[in-house]
């Protein structure tokens, strides 16, 4: 016991050993959390996905039956996957292009630009139920804001959240309101590009388009890549907006992946089945990220590559 206390006080230890012990004390909260709340559950969820557990009584090892059922029999699984890809593609492609254009605009040196940056950035920090409720009201087909604005330019707006065809575009439009977060990251990237590169380009006779194409884009590409990955992962996990605004409807028009997973786990209590769903989501996200990394060698430019 006395030896242990002495050890804790660091007596009889070399400086390196002492520092090592202090390192593990410092990271202890995270390390314990990693085992209890992340690592353990990851392994547990993999094991659960091979059972038919309901969370209550039934617990049998069923092998790959959950996965087989998902891929072969479960029509809703494929619908949820398709809907999520639709949402992800729409919100990421439009969102990143929009954020890039906005960041370039916000990088202009005109008076009052700070105020505009705040205005565009603000919506991205407001998320959750309150904002979802606000958008329900904005998308109201009869007296909502969007259809009112459309009527001003002579367009009769669709039923939005009540329409099979327009519910998903409505969710994508809503996501575009939050592009300010990506804008700020891209703006920081833009401001990190050294002015000397633009000067050099101008001396070589470059016009604005050349500057954008051959200086801005390559220099910004690592940040752009980061933004695309983050947005993609985020878009695959959309849940709150769907839960509050559409409950996956009308029909199955906005049945997205995580909402379907939630239904299986907490409404139908099919825990094992939901765990399998979670693992497929994990693999889909990893695969997409890996593909992006593969593709990125073709278009992302890292300065350090050329000494």
């Amino acid at each position, binding site marked *: 016991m006395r030896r242990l206390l002495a050890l804790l006080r660091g007596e009889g230890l070399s400086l390196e050993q002492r520092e090592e012990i202090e390192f*593990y004390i410092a990271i202890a909260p*995270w390390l314990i959390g990693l085992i*209890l709340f992340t690592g353990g559950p990851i392994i547990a*969820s993999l094991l659960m996905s091979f059972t038919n557990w309901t969370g209550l009584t039934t617990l049998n090892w069923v092998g790959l039956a959950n996965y087989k059922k998902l891929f072969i029999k479960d029509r809703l699984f494929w619908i949820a996957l398709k809907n999520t890809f639709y949402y992800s593609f729409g919100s990421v492609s439009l969102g990143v292009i929009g954020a890039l254009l906005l960041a370039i605009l916000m990088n202009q040196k005109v008076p009052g630009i700070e105020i505009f940056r705040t205005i565009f950035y603000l919506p991205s920090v407001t998320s959750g139920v309150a904002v979802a409720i606000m958008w329900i*009201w904005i998308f109201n087909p009869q007296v909502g804001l969007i259809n009112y604005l459309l009527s001003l330019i002579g367009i009769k707006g669709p039923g939005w959240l009540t329409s099979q065809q327009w519910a998903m575009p409505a969710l994508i439009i809503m996501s575009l309101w939050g592009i300010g977060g990506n804008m700020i990251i891209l703006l920081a990237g833009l401001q990190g590009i050294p002015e000397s590169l633009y000067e050099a380009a101008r001396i070589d006779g470059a016009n604005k388009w050349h500057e954008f194409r051959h200086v801005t884009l390559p220099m910004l590409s690592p940040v752009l890549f980061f933004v695309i990955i983050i947005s993609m992962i985020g878009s695959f996990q959309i849940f709150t907006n769907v839960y509050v605004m559409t409950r996956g409807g009308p029909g199955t028009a906005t049945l997205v992946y995580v909402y379907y997973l939630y239904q299986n786990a907490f409404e139908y209590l099919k825990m094992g089945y939901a765990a399998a769903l979670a693992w497929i989501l994990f693999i889909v996200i990893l695969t997409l990220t890996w593909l992006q990394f593969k593709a990125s060698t073709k278009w992302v430019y890292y300065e350090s590559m050329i000494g």
Partner: protein
Amino acid sequence: MGQTLVSETLGRERRYIAAAPWYRRRTVRRIVYMVFIYVIILPGAFLFCLPFLWMLSTSLKDPKQIFVYPPQWIPNPIRWQNFIEGWTKYLPFNIFLRNSLIITIGNVLGNLFSCSLTAYGFARLRARGKEVLFLLVLATMMVPQEVTLIPQYVLFTKLGWNNTFLPLMVPPWFGWPFFIFLLRQFFMTLPRDLDDAARIDGASTWGILFRIILPLSKPALATVTIFAFIGNWNNFLGPLIYLRDTEKLTLAVGLQQFRGAFGYVDFHLMMAVSLLVLLPVLIVFFVGQRTFVKGIALTGIKG
């Protein structure tokens, strides 16, 4: 040689501009450019503000005015009592507010404690296996929350924590990879000489953290505070699956119940309550705006 060439070129350019006709003069071109930029920005900024204005306008309306078409932007009469009525009429929002505050503030403190301690270890202390462990921090940032959701739910239910704040309030004391990464990046930028000087003056490893590193890291700590505040305040899925009794709900879940039960009748009250729920986020945003933006830039660039 190259240097003289550049300055000569620049010099010639300057003379050329000075002799240009009025429409090519620098001030005129500058004004045209500014007008052009404003013409693009202003409508966009207006469009981004509109949802908030729409919400505010509806929240001040009389029930009879809500379905008037075309909509009136400035309600007549203005009903301020909507805010009180919405807050108290159907559901106990005061209790939801208390619950949200307890959970949010507790979790912010938990995150600040656990993440700055862990980040300090990774940024400053030498140990075998550190690189591998840090890779694990980065790797866990990639794991979607849904993968751990179900086993965590089972674990907390087995512990008898269901329908309490514990499943929401315990994990934040055990770190959050994104914040650890953010703080570690910031700690790395602080000069090591400060540590050494303090160590010579007799400070311990923990003394250096609390007296040197943390006081110098206020921008990064503020960023974590704001992120954690907004994230916990808006958190929906966690409270949705763990909390059952009405007197234990948070604002996010309470608001959703309000919508489910009464939202189709009292749109004006629902907008008023939503606005009140959003208000703390707006306040935190405006108070911490500068540090906040800096912090995101920090992770953005170094990510």
